[in-house]
């Protein structure tokens, strides 16, 4: 975790969306490294959307809130959008009391909803459409 260039957080690409998630164990340095990595990947992969799953986060303090807000802004400047998905209810309550409503950060109740907002669609029943759908699940 001391390597500033590597946060150790996986960033997956699904079409033009990057999918990633945060863990409680992320320390401050790793969080900053993650921000850098993610923004570089947005450009390198020409991503139009980023899904950040935070369902594993047991707390979001002002430091993590700042990371999320800056990521949302940076990503927007790069022409992509971030959806933060899966915030725990207790975390949401605490964040509001902390005075942090995460302005400018788009959210979704879970990763699946977040992907839908980013234009990624499930096609139930389209399995029959076969190979074509499997090759082009994106729109």
């Amino acid at each position, binding site marked *: 975790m001391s390597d500033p260039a590597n946060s150790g957080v996986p960033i997956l690409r699904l079409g033009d969306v990057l999918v990633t998630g945060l863990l409680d164990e992320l320390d*401050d340095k790793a969080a900053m490294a993650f921000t850098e990595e993610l923004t570089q990947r947005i450009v390198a992969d020409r991503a139009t959307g980023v899904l950040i799953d935070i369902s594993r986060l047991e707390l979001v303090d*002002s430091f993590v809130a700042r990371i999320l807000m800056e990521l949302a802004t940076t990503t927007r400047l790069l022409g992509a959008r971030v959806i933060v998905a899966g915030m725990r209810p207790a975390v949401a309550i*605490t964040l509001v009391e902390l005075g942090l409503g995460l302005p400018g950060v788009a959210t979704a109740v879970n990763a699946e909803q977040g992907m839908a907002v980013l234009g990624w669609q499930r096609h139930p029943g389209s399995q029959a459409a076969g190979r074509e759908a499997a090759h082009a699940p994106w729109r």
Partner: protein
Amino acid sequence: MRPGDDPSPGLVAVEDHHPQTAAVEDHHPQAAATRLGPTHSGQAAETAGGSASRHPIRSEEHLLTARHAVRAATLDVGFTLVDQTRVVTAASELVRNAYIHGGGGTLTIEVVRRADVRGLRLTVTDHGPGISDLDAAFTDGYTTGPGLGHGLGGARRLMDDFRIHTAEGHGTTVVATRWTTPP
């Protein structure tokens, strides 16, 4: 970064909060500290529950270990999930403040009892430069460091009792308690 490194006060949003003065008394922080927040009549009946643990705040890693220790303590005391999250989040803010602004310090976690109610008391002490302008430090959006400026005021809102004891050049001690049922 320490207060004073950055002469610009940053964004100052005015919030209704209790004005206070900085108390100077290093060895009896609780007696000398200025009370913030509501005063409780049952204060005198508070007793420590016996278990207190001390955790150093000297590295980034300590921010995590301190948080884990507080989480474990909230489970022992029997807080609800939301209260656990409140207390651990407040601890995270206070410990990070001590690390970033105070150059490191100590977190003490105590189980306390008042009548039949159990609570958790966090005492975060640093020997940094102290806070010269407490009013500003409690104002949401005010920061001299890399954060959002919600740490101190936010931590106070997340806890039931919150006392701060600081003096320029003499460090800062925060004593914050949350009870398992609201006072």
